[in-house]
Every structure is written in C-alpha cells, then in structure tokens.
C-alpha cells in the first residue's frame, strides 16, 4: 500500500490588488510514496515544496485535487494521529520548557497520560537534548529548536513523518545525527518524506526522489536510475604535457599534472578525442566515465525550461 498518494493536488493563489491574476504555487501534482521508504522532495527555493507539505497538513486548502495518507483521505482527522510534521524553520511557544512543549503536543496527539513522561524523556534523549528538558525554549539556539522540532514530529510514534528542510540550522554533526535518525526511522518501518534543496543530503539518504520546480514535477525515481540517464562526461588521461588543439573544439577541460594530461569532456565527444590523441601519437592511459550526480540530474531538469522561459519573458 502506498503510504502517500497525491492525486492532482493543485494550488493557485490570486495576486495583485486591482488587477487580480493567478499564480500557480503548485500545478497538478501526482505522486506516490511507498510505505517504509525515505522519499526526498527536491527543488530550489520557491519551487512549491513547502506549499505541498502545507496542503498535505491541511494548513492551506487546495484549488483542486486530493491525497490519501496511509489509505485514508488526507483531511480525515484520524490520519493525523499517524503523521509527524516538522515545519520549515520551526518556532515554538517560547514561554514553555522543552519538556512542557512536548508534553502539550503529546496531549494533543492523544498519547495516553501514563506514557507521556516516558515518551517525552525518550524523545529528548533521541534528539540529543536530554539535559535541557527543563529550559525555556526562548533560551534555545536555532539548532536546538530544530532538534525540538524533530522531537515533536516523532514523539507520538507516527507511521509517516514529513520533514520540511530538516537539516536547516544544524551544524555538520547535527546534520549527521539527523541523517542517522532518518535511517533509524526507516529501519523502524516508518515512511519518511522530506523536502530539501541540499542535494547531497538527498543523495545520501533517499530511496527515491522527486524534483519539483516552479510548482511542477520535473522528475521522479530511484537516484541511481535518474542519474544513469543523465548525459554524462568522460575523463581521458594521456601521457605528455601537450594538448592537441582539436580537443578545445570538443569542449574538453584540460589540466596538466606532471607528465600527464587529464581532460574531462562530454561523452559523445570521446571517440573524436581518442582519434585526436592517436593522430598526435599521444599515449592514452585511461578513459573513465564520470559518474553523473544527482546535482547533474537536478540541473538538467531545471535548466532547459529556464532558458525557454527566459526567451519568452
């Protein structure tokens, strides 16, 4: 069963004071996330990631479309007990201590009274804040608030968690801990849906990713499959310090190191490059395909339409 199924969810805002015009925050989105997977929702700032999450959380209402979470209509209050949500740059009631805040959220999530204290202590320990439970949140740093945000999202043992930019505000150690936590959640059988614009996080963690840009889904799939389709580059290394002039026409970036030359050029030009080396009687040492990264795929998916839009504007 799909943990999350988005069926044509769309959000259009009216902007302007006198002359109203429509702004598409999210064009009809179709997406399915399987149970137990870590799903990355990628896109540049303003792509529609947060809008999608707000729609799923019932914070804004869609113009059209629907979604199913764990088999229920996403508006069904029952399903919300099974959801954990970390908003982007979370802000909490700063007059409360971390323990009071989590106890309050546990009450709202319907955690039984006798279990609350234990759950709160356990989750504080899990996010690395075991000693500051009694400190008011107004004294917390941005990174500590982010940890509290993660704590409140997993406090009630949800089956699916939605994280909006979970690494935001964290130092390298904190980012590593959050990555580990997300992997632990996966091992516990939970589904993790997280949005980010940091591609290395997604590449390291996700079973599958979707790329969204200008409110439109641009690609979806397993990271390895997506990157294998990217038109890659090859690295050619030969002996000597000479660079044939014809290589420049083949878009090769050349670097001379000691008595070898290393050139990176588009895959489709590799045969022409080898011919050029042969003509110049240069000894080929190696020819290695350069593995495409998620970033390459991301740039490829975003770039072409940008150019088209640039022309039309």
């Amino acid at each position, binding site marked *: 069963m799909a943990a999350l199924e988005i069926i044509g969810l769309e959000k259009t805002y009216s902007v302007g004071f006198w002359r109203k015009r429509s702004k598409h925050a999210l064009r009809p989105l179709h997406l399915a996330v399987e149970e137990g997977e870590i799903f990355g929702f990628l896109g540049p700032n303003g792509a529609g990631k947060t809008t999608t999450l*707000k729609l799923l*959380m*019932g*914070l*804004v*209402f869609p113009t059209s479309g629907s979604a199913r979470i764990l088999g229920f209509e996403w508006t069904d*209050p*029952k399903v*919300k*007990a099974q*959801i954990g*949500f970390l*908003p982007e*740059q*979370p*802000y*909490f*009631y700063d*007059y*409360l201590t971390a323990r009071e805040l989590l106890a*309050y*959220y546990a*009450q*709202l*999530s*319907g955690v039984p009274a006798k279990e609350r204290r234990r759950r709160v202590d356990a989750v504080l320990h899990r996010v690395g804040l075991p000693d500051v439970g009694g400190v008011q949140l107004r004294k917390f740093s941005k990174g500590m608030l982010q940890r509290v*945000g993660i704590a*409140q999202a997993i406090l*009630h043992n949800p089956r699916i968690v939605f994280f909006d930019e979970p690494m935001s505000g964290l130092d390298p150690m904190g980012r590593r801990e959050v990555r580990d936590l997300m992997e632990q959640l996966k091992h516990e059988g939970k589904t993790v849906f997280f949005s980010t614009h940091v591609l290395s996080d997604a590449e390291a963690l996700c079973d599958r990713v979707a790329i969204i840009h200008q409110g439109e889904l641009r690609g979806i799939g397993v990271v390895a499959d997506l990157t294998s389709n990217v038109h890659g580059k090859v690295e050619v290394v030969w002996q000597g310090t000479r660079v044939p002039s014809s290589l420049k026409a083949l878009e090769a970036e050349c670097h001379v190191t000691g008595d070898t030359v290393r050139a990176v050029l588009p895959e489709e030009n590799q045969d022409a490059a080898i011919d050029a080396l042969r003509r110049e009687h240069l000894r080929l040492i190696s020819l290695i395909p350069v593995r495409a990264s998620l970033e390459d795929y991301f740039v490829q998916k975003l770039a072409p339409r940008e150019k088209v839009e640039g022309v039309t504007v």
Partner: protein
Amino acid sequence: MNARVIHIASNTFREAVRDRVLYNLIAFALLLSGAAILVGQISIEIEKLVVINLGLTAVSLFGVVIAIFIGIGLVSKEIDRRTLYTVLSRPVRRWEFIVGKFLGLAGTLVVNTFFMAMGVFGALLYLAHHFHKADAWVLVALYFIILQFLIICALALLFSSFSSPLLSAVFAFALFVIGSFAEDLRGFATMAQGGSRWLATGAAYLVPNFSALNVISSVAHEQPIPGHLILYNTLYAALYTAMAVCGAVLIFEHRNLK
C-alpha cells in the same frame, strides 16, 4: 468536554499567566483601588460610593485592556509565528483550536477579575471595617463585568481570526466604546427619521450592549439589581459571545495559513 479543547485552553491560560505585562496591568488596577481609598477620604459621607465606583471602573477598564491585549494575538500571533503549524498538523480540528483559545482567555480573565475584585473588597473593608449586606451587589456588578469581558474576548478573537493585531485592537476597542453607549444609540434611533432611523436601529442592535451590563453606579448607590436583569444579561452575553466565537470558527475554518 473535548480533551483537546481543554489542553489548548490550559496552554492559553499558561501563556497569559507567564506574560509579565498581565501582572503590570493587574498591579495598576489594584493601585487604582488603593487610590480610591485616598479619594474616598476627601469625599465626605460618600467614601464608599467613591471606592465602589472607582474600584469597579478600574476592574472593568483594565480587564477590557487585558481582554483586548491578549485576545487580538490569540490567532494572528500563532499564524505569524507559525506555532499553529505543529498544532493543526495533529488530530486537532480548527474549531477546537478556536474554542480552546477562547476558553483559555476567558479563564484568564475570570482569575484576573478575582484578584482585582479582592483589591476592591480590601478597600471596602479598610473603609468600613466590615461588610454590609448591600455589598453583595458588588458581586453582581463584578459578574456583569465578567460578562463584558467574555463578549470583548470573543470579539477580539473574531477580529484576530481575519485581521492584523493592530486592526483587531482598533475594532475591538471601538466596539467597546460604542457598546458602552448602546442605550444612547437606541435612544437616538427612536428619534431619528427615515433611512437614518433604520441605520441607527440596526447599529444599536448589532453592537454589544455594554451599557446594560454596567450597573456600577446602581451598586455604588446600594440599589438592588433585579433578578430578571441578571437572567437577561446572562442570556444576552452567552448568545452574543457564542455568535462571535462561531463567526471566528467559520472564518478560521476556511482560512489559508500563510
């Protein structure tokens, strides 16, 4: 009652209790009650009248300020700071949030009124060294003041559900002032002619009738408050408050959170 509503109400109460501004306002109200003793001492034969008048007016005014001050931020502050996101993403319905917020503030106002009323009764005791039977009417006046607070609080919540805190404060305070002259507005409506008569009558019945809830002067003159007025005022305040809260719920149910 719904457990989530109670949790939201108790958190709202806790937020108000931890706000230092609240204590300053209560301290001012108590100071004013104390000052009533001094004014009373230079008012020959009418000390008690002055103490009750000034004391209850202080309770009423400071209570209204507190109701508006806290009420206007109840929803808009939660939206601006996005604290609402982690509440509404839980099994909490929007109406539960609004009703919980209202009850939390109403509870805060009742507790505040209790402490401010202690100041008034303390001043009375200081003057007369004992209570008279007629002093019990002060309790009725305090009850009516609480009813005023509930209406103000519901109106502040209503405005807070769709406008900014500043505008909400202006709207709520304007309605309090107009409502305090509701009887005069009704009097004007009976004298007016044509279209302005309809307009004035409509406005007179639309704005909350705070003048009917103000019995401070009668109580100060030791005049008894009729039982039917207590009943009518209770029903009126309950109905007006319920309508304002329902309005807030209706608006909030359809609001997109930025």
